[in-house]
């Protein structure tokens, strides 16, 4: 079973919850797909056993074969290539390139434009006790996280308990993560910003047709704002983590109260499992 943990807004406790949840349900695979800003390893502290480069193909032009006709640059949808005919120069802007391959397809001179791999990030694997760790880290300045997320996901074996930490927001990277999971947990907090961003994510998860529930973090008795939203939208709040300065302090040091939430999160997993049968 694959469960993804998402949240529209950052900083609502998504990674806190995900790592606690993976630990409580070990043996499990924890997957960090927040490749722009991965944080799960701070809490799980995995021993990294494998690290490999993630590369994509980008163009390289051979000066001796290129006629500087400029077709590649004209056809590049991202304006990542510039050909300057008068001075016979070519320029490549790697931060604009999406590795689509059009330039090499349209080049009329054989061997004038070749595609070479360019490192765009890394994929890491490791283990923290019975929790196996898998994650990606995107290089700074890269235009899109989706290809690296796909590459990370290809490393997942299907027969495992898979707990996926999704990126924040509601755009393409989140969709890439959620599109083939079995269940989605949305971590939110009872603040106006938190509820607003949650509502955007709810819209997305509904579009994708995934079953989902809410995890309320920083829960404080007396503040019923998130509960009211959930009731209105007919969504279940399936789990709560209280607002406590102690938890925040521990978090700041990379320490989480794993034992305290173990039993509750085990039951949560079983509940979802029963629901999907």
């Amino acid at each position, binding site marked *: 079973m694959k469960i993804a943990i998402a949240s*529209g*807004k*950052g*900083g*609502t406790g998504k*990674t806190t919850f995900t790592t606690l949840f993976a630990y409580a349900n070990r043996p499990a695979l924890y997957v960090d797909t927040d490749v*722009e*800003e991965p*944080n799960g390893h*701070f809490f799980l502290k995995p021993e990294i056993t494998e690290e490999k480069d993630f590369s994509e*193909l980008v163009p390289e032009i051979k000066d001796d074969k290129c006629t500087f006709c400029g077709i590649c640059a004209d056809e590049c*949808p*991202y304006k990542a290539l510039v050909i300057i005919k008068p001075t016979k120069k070519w320029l490549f802007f790697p*931060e604009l390139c*999406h*590795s*689509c*391959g*059009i330039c090499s*397809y*349209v080049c009329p001179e054989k061997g004038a434009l070749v595609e070479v791999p360019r490192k765009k990030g890394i994929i890491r694997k490791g283990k923290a006790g019975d929790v196996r760790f898998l994650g990606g880290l*995107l290089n*700074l*300045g*890269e*235009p*899109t996280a*989706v*290809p690296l997320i*796909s590459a990370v996901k290809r490393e997942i074996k299907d027969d495992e308990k898979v707990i996926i930490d999704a*990126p*924040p*927001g*509601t*755009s*393409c990277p*989140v*969709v*890439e993560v959620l599109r083939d999971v079995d269940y989605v947990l949305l971590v939110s907090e*009872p*603040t*106006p*910003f938190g509820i*607003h*961003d949650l509502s*955007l*994510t709810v819209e*997305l998860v509904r*579009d*994708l047709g995934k079953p989902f529930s809410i995890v309320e973090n*920083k829960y404080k008795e007396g*503040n019923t*704002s998130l509960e009211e939203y959930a009731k209105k939208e007919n969504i279940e709040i399936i789990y709560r983590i209280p607002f406590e*300065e102690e938890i*925040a*302090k521990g*978090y*700041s*040091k*990379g320490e989480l109260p794993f034992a305290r939430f173990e039993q509750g999160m085990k039951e949560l997993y079983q509940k979802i499992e029963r629901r999907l049968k």
Partner: protein
Amino acid sequence: MRAKEIVFISGKGGTGKTTITSSFVNWLYKNGYEFVIADADVDAADMHILLAPRILKKESFIGKSIAEIRNDACTSCDLCRQYCRFEAIDIINSEYIVNPFRCDGCGLCQLVCPVDAIDMIPQTVGEWYVSDTNSGKMVHAKLYPGAENSGNLVTMVKHQAHLITDENDIPLIVVDGPPGIGCPVTSSLSGASYAIIAAEPTLSAIHDMERAIATAKHFNVPVGIIINKATLNEKNTQSIKDYANKRDIPVIGEIPFSRCVVDSLVDLKFTTDGCPELRDIFDKMFKKILEGLK
């Protein structure tokens, strides 16, 4: 003169970026400054919740085009699927279908299709607004869930903000930036005068802050740091300061961990109004930001 842009970013979400930005906006207004607000966190825009904008103008935002296969013309030759680098073409019930979430809009499939069965259809992926708020004009946007090209929407929001400042001779744009370090962040940093990093003394936020600072430096944008929730972990707060010192990055101020910040948010109040005990801290901090601009 082109208006200066102060951009608030954080790397990690939830460090108080929008809270600080809205407090800054409120403070600027109360101290008589003229400025335009740009909410560049188009994925999850939140500024409007506190600023209660009255929308004056609303426009659709056309993002990238997405491939569409006309099945009556398609001969199932499979070339498009083989060439697509984004694995965006699926065969469903022996029909070729483009997955709009994966399609990058490059158009290679259209080029390779031998029977001209593929169209590139421009997508409306969001909308942007020019609004009035009690503190000044604001440009904001909403990206539809699951859409991409948020970097280009950020560029549009900033462009519209500059049109307003140009026309009215307003010297400043305050930008609430997006989280992360990806395309929308680089768009919000491009052409900015000053990037303020909202940091917090947690290991993950420090890690993300370092990546955000590196991104700003890459674009030659000077940076300053505000440490939010500074009393949460004194040791980490110190290491942020050491990090900043070593790199000649000013620490503009420290906001203590305080329940009233969340409480004022819950009551839909600016922190500058809801937390009188923090007033002096904000005052000093925001003055320092403006000094850093000169």
